[in-house]
């Protein structure tokens, strides 16, 4: 069909799939994130060739091979720094960084906190399975204390990182969380991250069927998931539960679960989620909720507007160039103190 009008191309997830065979273990949680990402890429309407997917090393870091966009599978831990270079060099590209709990928070911890601090406009999918999969089962910086792995036969003695805390400690402007078995929330959260201007950190809770099966099993159970998680949406009441009658309120400085209709609690008492609030206090409280007393927060927990590093770089260059008399290399040379010999 021929048309003279410029129309926005409608992509489908298929347009973002490469011809490569996906080499993750059957049942791996990474598949769900990959397909959610490809769906979001299609819905965003940004062409594959305007998209760059950058990763480090680890199971999840194989992801760039499975998308049809430009991709770069780099070295362990350096994805954030490489993505920084890509985005600063060409801010018109949509840049995704694919990383895991080892890649991002152990060997790449320094690059991670600094890209978050700078607010690089990149979308970070942090696959958190709480284990090293590719090296066959050592504990990672997010493994729960006491957990037995190949490198901790008597249980780890280390305290784990909590990615949300690290992100907000590094002054992150976006933090979201998704669970591999909840595609709807996954797509919604990834889409919100893509639209955020600045570093979007999305913690993807994924299951490693081989080395850490069921790490997120408590919340993943289909029949109990509604009671054990809460999907946060900006501007909406913090209500969750199978019957939609549980909610969060503040008691003193802490969050508390209440049941609407019990002890005089009405829907009006329930907190409304404000993801755009600059202050991190409540966002942290929400992000750090743990079971079984509290539900685990999913969706967009924090989404704050601030200038991105790459935009600031462009703006500064434009400002200097507008004022400068030097436009060419020869003019630059002429500006030097010089003499005839």
């Amino acid at each position, binding site marked *: 069909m021929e048309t003279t009008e410029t129309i926005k191309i409608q992509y489908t997830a298929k347009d973002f799939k*490469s011809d*490569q065979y996906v080499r993750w273990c059957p049942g791996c949680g990474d598949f769900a994130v990959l397909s959610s990402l490809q769906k979001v890429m299609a819905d965003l309407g940004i*062409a*594959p*060739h*305007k998209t*760059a997917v*950058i990763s480090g*090393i680890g199971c999840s870091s194989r992801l*760039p*091979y499975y998308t*049809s*966009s*430009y*991709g*770069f*599978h*780099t*070295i362990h831990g*350096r994805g954030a*720094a*490489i*993505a*920084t*270079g*890509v*985005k*600063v*060099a*060409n801010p*018109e*590209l949509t840049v995704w960084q694919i990383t895991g709990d080892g890649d991002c928070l152990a060997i790449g911890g*320094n*690059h991670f906190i*600094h890209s978050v601090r700078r607010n690089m406009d990149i979308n970070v999918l942090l696959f958190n399975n709480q284990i090293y999969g590719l090296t066959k089962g050592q504990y990672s910086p997010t493994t729960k204390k006491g957990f037995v792995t190949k490198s901790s036969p008597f249980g780890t003695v280390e305290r784990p990182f909590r990615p949300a805390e690290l992100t907000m400690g590094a002054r992150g402007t976006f933090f979201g969380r998704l669970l591999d078995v909840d595609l709807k929330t996954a797509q919604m959260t990834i889409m919100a991250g893509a639209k955020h201007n600045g570093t979007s950190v999305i913690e993807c809770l994924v299951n490693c069927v081989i080395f850490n099966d069921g790490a997120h099993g408590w919340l993943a159970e289909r029949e109990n998931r509604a009671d054990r998680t809460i999907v946060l949406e900006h501007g909406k009441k913090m209500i969750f539960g199978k019957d939609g009658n549980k909610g969060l309120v503040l008691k003193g400085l802490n969050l508390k679960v209440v049941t609407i209709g019990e002890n005089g609690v009405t829907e009006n008492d329930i907190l409304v989620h404000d993801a755009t609030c600059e202050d991190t206090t409540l966002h942290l409280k929400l992000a750090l909720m743990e079971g079984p007393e509290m539900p685990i927060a999913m969706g967009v927990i924090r989404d704050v507007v601030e200038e991105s590093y790459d935009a600031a*770089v462009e703006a*500064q*260059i434009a400002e*200097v*160039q507008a004022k*400068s008399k*030097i*436009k*060419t*290399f*020869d003019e*630059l*040379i002429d500006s*030097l*103190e*010089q*003499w*005839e*010999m």
Partner: protein
Amino acid sequence: MDKVTKTELDNVVVRFSGDSGDGMQLTGTLFSNLSAILGNEISTFPDFPSEIRAPQGTLGGVSGFQVHLGSSKVYTPGDDPDVLVVMNPAALKVNAKFIKKGGVIIFDADTFDKSGFEKAGFKTENPFEELNISDTIQLIPAPLSTLTQASLDGMGFDNKTVLRSKNMFALGLICWLFNRPIDQAIHFLTNKFGKKPTILHANIKVLTDGFNFGNNLHLTVSTYFVERSHETPKGKYTSISGNKATAWGLIAASQKAGLQLFLGSYPITPATDIMHELTARKDMGVKVVQAEDEIAGITSAIGASFAGSLAATNTSGPGLALKSEAIGLAVMAELPLVVIDVMRGGPSTGLPTKTEQTDLLQALYGRNGESPAVVMAAGTPDDCFHYAFMASKIALEHMTPVILLTDAFIGNGTSLWKLPTLAELPEIKPNYVKPDMTDYKVTSRDEKTNVRYWSVPGVEGFAHRNGGLEKDYYTGAISTDPENHQKMVDTREAKINYISNVIPELKIEGDSSADLLVIGWGGTQGHLMSAVSSLNKKGNKVALANFNYINPLPKNTVELIQQYKKVVVCELNSGQFATFLRSKVPAVEFLQYNKVQGQPFTATELEEHFVTLLK
């Protein structure tokens, strides 16, 4: 007024020395620039301690700046000074052993008191006798502090500001000693302090008073006159440091290639000035990321290269060690990248402000796997422009990381630089994919040169996945096939070796029948040239081969070296280039001359050693 004699010299070496806060670098720079404007060849070298401000008047805080002026080509900042300006007894003590016989010492008599002697560790109150130099030198005592105070009396400055101007008094005095009109110095000061009129006025006043003080000195001291150079090709010149020249070479290359320039960098002595120069050049659209560490410096540059920029990172030895893995990624991903290593004394933190050539083998071999990269070295400060340009050109045209070695000596030192125009520089044509290319793979390459075609994100039809895993030669997909790996290793090696076809052949200074071939590489070029040309003037037959391209070596290397009976490799390390050459030219016996003291060679020590080899 006494009759002052005037000695004409072919070249002269002046060293300014004082506390790191005494402004010796500025004084030296102004003096060398105004000498250049008057037609002299110049070469300078600053020598500063790693302490920013060591205790005043102590040996640890002595900072120096040496200038070599010539009426013909000068190759180095000179060995021992003819004239030494010392601002305190500590500076005298540190430098006394270097002063030439019959040389002149100008000293700040105000600081030559009991407390000054104590701080410098003198036991008596006559330091010149104590150092055993009182009979062989001429002394010009000048109470610089008192005279500067008198000069600025009543102008409303506090004492600290007044004393900070005493370097200008010394400059005025030196201008007198060298028969230099001070107009040009005033012009420089006006450029520097134009926005601070009172400071400018004070500096000019002190400078003028310093000059007049010399003029009215009733001393029988010989003043110097260095005739203008007639060997220097005609043209417009400036004085430039190696680090600045390196930065500008990158800018020129980016402009020539029509690409944005990106630098990923982490501060490290003595390489940081390259970042300072580039981050100031937003007018040229240069993007600089001051990264969180050395690794992010290079990996952000690799990201920028992937995204289509001319990308560079700069560092020194310890930083190069941290960047090793990432250089391997650039080798594997076959992306253009310029890595500049301004070498300093090592290992570990070593001697951060001192010069050495000890990173050569690290640059050549310091990576896992078979990981060939181009290695080059610049020879002089102004050379850094050319080799930074050529490093960029080779990186872009051959899709490879290029390691450019400079060092603290040429990075911080300055020399005359003939100003280039963009038009006269060679073309740079990156090996881009051709728009009509079908079935592009990340490994698609030119069959003759083995250079991979570069497709830059944003272009439709050429999306691909690159990475650090081995790729299939034909499909670009990841592969662990044994024969494919061998083929890829061979291809990457062949790609680098092919570059010997595009770099200039090795040129030998001196005739092919010389009794001795002196070999050097990089920043020792000036000292080797000085020593060899001096020996040749005295009738000895010595030839010099100075290498700027190390991997690959120039095509004619083996053939040329084999012509000589005696070959000596001189380097500021324990024999790294000699080791490399032995692997490439096994038939030749390479003698070595090495020095690892954090200091450049002196032309004198080289000459003396070559004489023993000629016997």
